[in-house]
């Protein structure tokens, strides 16, 4: 009994001290690879046109703009979507019960940040566009179940395919 209350006390004290992970602000060995995954080069045009093309892609993908600073080439956008299939939640509720269905992921907020940076190219001004995605996921109880960056290569490939089309359309003023 005494041992139990001592353990409980220790847990309480420890619970009050949360620490930032040591590597949270240190460059990791894979940061160069990630940079390559998240970036593409575009040649020609003006920075504001490239940024406008990025804004177009963001809108194509259903995002709404939260913040922008054209002088630094920054565009921040987000969208809120369902995180689960309504059909599977119904099935789980039937089979296992309401509580299990409620603790499944329900909604997510996906954030996108696009940064355009000038770089010197072989034939004049070029731009490096870097996109980063992250999301927060909640369950039906309103609890945060996930806080994560999105790292799938396909996501970035598809994003940049859309962006290439958007840069073309922007140049044609469509």
């Amino acid at each position, binding site marked *: *009994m*005494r041992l*139990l*209350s001592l353990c*409980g*006390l220790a847990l*309480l*004290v420890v*619970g*009050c001290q*949360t*620490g*930032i*992970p*040591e*590597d*949270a*602000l*240190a*460059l990791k060995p894979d*940061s160069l690879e*990630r*940079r390559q995954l*998240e970036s593409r080069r575009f040649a020609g045009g003006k920075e504001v046109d490239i940024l406008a093309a990025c804004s177009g892609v963001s809108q194509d993908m259903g995002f709404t703009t*939260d*913040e922008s*600073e054209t*002088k*630094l*080439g*920054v565009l*921040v956008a987000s969208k809120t979507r369902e995180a689960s299939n309504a059909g599977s939640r119904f099935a789980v509720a039937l089979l296992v019960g309401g509580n299990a269905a409620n603790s499944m992921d329900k909604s997510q907020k996906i*954030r*996108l*940040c696009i*940064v355009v*940076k000038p770089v010197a190219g072989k034939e004049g001004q070029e731009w490096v566009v*870097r996109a*980063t*995605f*992250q*999301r*927060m996921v909640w369950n039906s109880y309103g609890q945060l179940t996930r*806080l*994560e*960056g999105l790292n799938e290569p396909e996501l970035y490939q598809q994003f940049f395919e859309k962006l290439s089309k958007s840069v073309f359309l922007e140049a044609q003023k469509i």
Partner: protein
Amino acid sequence: MILRLSLLTAALALSGCVHNSTDSALEVGANQVQIRQIQSRAFDTTDKTKTLRTVISTLQDLGFVIDKADLELGSITATKLDGYALRMSVTVRPRNAKQLLVRANAQFQEAAVTDPAPYQAFFSSLSKSMFLTAQNVD
């Protein structure tokens, strides 16, 4: 009797961990000068725009998503989500005729980061991207 005692000590321990919640608005107990020293570094450059762009790309290298950016104010805010939420603001402003002062302050989950080690790690990463040494400020 034992149960009451252990409940009482548990309650005391809990209250020992918790201070008056409105104190958080002022960060009572934090030494202002010490905190600024931990959170600031000087760089031998006067190019504010280039420095801000380098801060942005360093933050992206570290896995952050930018929340806000303001060139005139010289301020960038970003969030990193990786099973935890780490939010950081970095400001860049002129220090003297030859230097800029870069200051970062971070919030990890629901607490301010006051340990020097994370800031050293950040400035080390920024230093590499800038190709300049991060100098301590008094």
